[in-house]
């Protein structure tokens, strides 16, 4: 059974095509890196899969059901710069947002929700900062709060938008450990990723994207110099050593 089935997704922004006819299927328990140049539509793809932006066409199936039926199976880690970190809220409250479906409309969080949030914070090494206002955290710590919030969602599929961008070594380690745990529990992870040097270390599958899906498959097969040139338009000569 496929965890995620993407068929013919097209997205336009201001009448400019951003994504054209993207189709691929993702098996459960895989770690996929979404790779492509700036403006290739990597973030848009994740947002289109989540239904955050409207699609011109195409369909997303999550464990063989339409997205609307299985939305609760998807967890999301947005880019860090997409929210106002000056917002009057502490780390624990941010993580509690991931528990929203369990808490429910109009209801207040109960003791077990708070315990759950604290467990998630502990898993990313942030329990000591639970009461901190979020603007008083470093960039890496903020990223870990977002990871804890995704953990709190207890999803089967995780979509992460550039989680490694500008984080410290401790956070990088935390993300890698989390991805390993998820994979071991047969969860599926898709990550928008920038750093070509680390692709082979982090991911077992790669999606090469440049408005179209250039190729999708195992890192070993897809992450080749030839395919990268197709994706980046011949500007990858400096990355020779990074490829397999």
């Amino acid at each position, binding site marked *: 059974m496929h965890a995620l089935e993407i068929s013919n997704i097209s997205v336009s922004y201001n009448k400019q095509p951003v994504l054209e006819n993207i189709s691929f299927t993702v098996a459960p328990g895989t770690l996929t890196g979404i790779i492509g140049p700036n403006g290739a539509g990597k973030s848009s793809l994740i*947002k289109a899969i*989540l*239904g*955050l932006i409207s699609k011109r066409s195409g369909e997303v199936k999550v464990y063989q059901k339409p997205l609307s039926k299985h*939305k*609760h199976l*998807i967890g*999301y880690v*947005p880019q860090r710069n*997409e*929210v*106002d970190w000056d*917002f*009057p*809220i*502490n780390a624990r*409250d*941010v993580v509690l*947002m*991931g528990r*929203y*479906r369990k*808490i429910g*409309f*109009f*209801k*207040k969080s109960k003791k077990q929700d708070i315990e759950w949030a604290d467990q998630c914070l502990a898993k990313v090494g942030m329990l000591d900062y639970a009461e901190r*206002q979020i603007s008083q955290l470093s960039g890496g710590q903020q990223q870990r709060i977002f990871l804890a*919030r995704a953990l709190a*969602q207890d999803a089967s599929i995780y979509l992460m938008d550039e989680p490694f961008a500008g984080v410290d070594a401790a956070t990088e380690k935390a993300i890698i450990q989390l991805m390993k745990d998820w994979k071991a529990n047969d969860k599926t992870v898709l990550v928008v990723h920038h750093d070509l040097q680390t692709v082979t270390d982090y991911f077992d599958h790669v999606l090469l994207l440049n408005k179209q899906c250039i190729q999708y498959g195992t890192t070993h097969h897809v992450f080749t110099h030839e395919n990268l040139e197709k994706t980046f338009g011949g500007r990858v000569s400096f990355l020779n050593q990074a490829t397999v």
Partner: protein
Amino acid sequence: MLEHLLLDLSSANLRWVLTGSLLLGFASGLVGSFVLLKKQSLISDAMAHAALPGVALGFLVFHEKSLPVLLIGATITSLIGTYLIQLIIQHSKLEADAAIGIIISVFFGSSIVLLTCIQQHASGNQAGLNTFIFGQAASLIGRDVHLVAVSAVILLGITMLFFKEFKMIIFDPNFAKGMGLPVTFLNGVLMFLIVGIVVIGIQTVGVILIAALIITPPLAARYWTEKLSVMAWLSALIGAVSGVIGTWFSTSIPDLPTGPMIVLVASSIFIISLLFGSKRGLIIKAVHVS
């Protein structure tokens, strides 16, 4: 002066009017916290200005100064103004601030024309619609105060009901949408709350300054806390205090409009908070740096 003020309190009507201002300020401060964090302060000002033509048109159509009729007119033009701002942003290359600026001036300009026409009309002098510009709490009669008070309580209730949801859609709308929250609907509810405050506050505070009663209390409250719930209730309290003190002072001095008095009180609290606020005040910050 104090004696005079205290003497006033024996009047039942004034006590009613003060209760109305208290509830209005409280609801306004609470809703205002979300407006401020959603960065919609200017939009709320535009909604207020866009309400005035509705008041004038309501009077022109029904020829009577019945508050419910005028407030329905205010609601309609306020929503039209808000919709036009969205339309301008979508279909022109103008930025939001320019679109808001246009709507504020066009709606305010046309309402002044309409009010002048009404004024020159035979029945115009009794209309007293000018109180809607700067607000005159004392002009509220018992029935109107009831309307304001009940509406404020309803707006308060809705805000409390959606508190957690508002927090989520304002902090991280994408994540909220991904979680399956009806973000568009909730934005609509928040918009409805702002229009509600503007409309029920229009006779007490006036269209020019009602936005200040929405924005100043949460702005002041922000200096004392890093927690949204504390900020929201503190802001409600500051709004209520400003409403009561401002109204009280303005009713004791003839011809002193209420809106400016309320805003002066709120602004004084803001300045105190800016200096002495325990979390973000300038003094505490200076101490931390040194």
